[in-house]
């Protein structure tokens, strides 16, 4: 693993890095709402430009930003083909067995693929530019109103933050096990799909065992240090949004409104 996994936080001091995590999360939601409501192909052209601008502002290497969508070529192709063949059967050019390809289907396929792509890359920019703990803090903050209707938001946030902190450890462990099994003759990189498939068990079985062991140890350690899920802790104070946070929110809200209105 000479390369880093997609979505790993990369410290920086760009405008995007400095935004409040909760504001960033809201911005992402607004942008996603706008993306999903974009219908015109030209609209997607605009989105690609905006995305490029965002990546530039965040000063993230383009390769890092696009890493979440890289390697999903097959997935995009599948989306495209499914829509092409099944989306608008009544306008089909030809009909072969159950397949009814149409130009409306092609357009829809491109649209959906573009949405998924934008969604993946935008979320990735958020993950790469925000420390994981700030991100879980933001979740907790945005969910905190739900406390009033009895949702255990603190607990949810704790679970989320523990899970997120586990990811790098698990990735590291997976990488170690993959190397150990490779050294023993497992063939993860074989072009032969059958060989590849057979290599899954030697990898996954130890990873699961390790994950459960870790979870066990961690829960013991947390209890030993006095953590109790049923004790209420004091309310957290969140810093108020600053001018730049409000500015980012307004821009994203404006984008959402514009795209939803003109579609």
């Amino acid at each position: 693993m000479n390369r880093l996994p997609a979505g790993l936080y990369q410290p920086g001091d760009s405008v995007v890095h400095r935004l409040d995590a909760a504001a960033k999360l809201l911005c992402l939601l607004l942008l996603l709402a706008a993306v999903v409501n974009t219908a015109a192909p030209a609209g997607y052209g605009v989105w690609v430009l905006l995305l490029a601008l965002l990546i530039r502002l965040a000063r993230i290497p383009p390769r890092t930003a696009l890493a979440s969508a890289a390697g999903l070529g097959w997935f995009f192709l599948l989306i495209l083909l499914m829509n092409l063949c099944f989306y608008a059967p009544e306008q089909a050019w030809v009909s072969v067995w159950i397949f009814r390809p149409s130009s409306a289907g092609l357009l829809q396929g491109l649209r959906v693929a573009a949405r998924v792509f934008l969604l993946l890359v935008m979320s990735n920019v958020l993950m790469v530019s925000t420390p994981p703990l700030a991100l879980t803090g933001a979740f907790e903050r945005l969910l905190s109103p739900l406390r009033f209707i009895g949702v255990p938001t603190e607990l949810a946030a704790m679970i989320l933050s523990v899970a997120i902190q586990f990811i790098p450890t698990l990735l590291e462990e997976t990488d170690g096990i993959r190397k150990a099994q490779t050294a023993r003759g497992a063939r993860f990189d074989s072009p032969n799909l059958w060989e590849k498939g057979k290599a899954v068990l030697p990898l996954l079985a130890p990873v699961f065992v390790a994950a459960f062991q870790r979870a066990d140890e961690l829960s013991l350690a947390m209890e030993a240090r006095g953590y109790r899920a049923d004790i209420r802790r004091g309310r957290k104070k969140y810093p108020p949004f600053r001018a730049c946070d409000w500015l980012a929110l307004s821009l994203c809200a404006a984008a959402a409104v514009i795209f939803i209105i003109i579609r």
Partner: protein
Amino acid sequence: MSVELRNVSCVYAPGTPYETRAVTELSLTIRDGEFAGVMGKTGCGKSTMIQLIAGLMRPSGGQILLDGQDINGKNFDRDGLRRRVGVVFQFPEIQLFETTVKRDVAFGLRHFGWTEEEKESSVREALERMGFSYEAVKDKSPLGFSGGEKRRLAVAGVLAARPELLILDEPLAGLDPLGREALLTLLGELNRDGTTILMVSHDADTLAEYADRIILLKDGRLFRDGPAAEVFADYDALKDNGIGVCRVREAAEALRRRGWEIPAGTVRYGQLLDEIAGRWRQ
């Protein structure tokens, strides 16, 4: 099997804020049949170096040659490399996954084109070498054993392929004294039978006892390289770099300073005892 590193470098996550130079312009040679010990502070690149040698990662620069052949060259036989080089990773017990001990130990042998009899005899020999009775354990689940036993099972899984080069990454960490002794004795035997051994350890006294040669790394570079007596002579350099000192050598030196005639370069425990006993009798 001989190993040669020529100017090898390895960088993790290049071009990101996490960029780490784990190994830098490292050159060294390990001769066929040698028992080499590798030491150095945590994070100095020991694990990276052995993964490079085992062909599990590509170096960012330089060449790695096994028996004179570049392992990252175009025509290199990588399946052959897997068979001829065995790696015992840190905490190898985690790699056990099969339903029975026999299947797990035989896991590495699937691609070698061995007959069932050859496989079985190799598995039997590896398990017996690690102190198990083949008949008693072969059909048990490997996950049901204790920590130390699992470690021995995992090592058996590596030995079953009869590697010519055996690489071990801190294999003694967390073993009880009996387990340590047994593993070290086994490594000594394998080495006598011609297996080249490369072992990472923090225990200077153990390496002094078993290794022909000590390789010290510091910040990904070669810091010292030579026989234990020579490398461990530099007490201050070892201390300052957080590398364990060889207590036997320190004891020998202390006695020498008090006028005992103990040869310089005494690093083995047995050697020191003999010297002391010899002096006593006089």
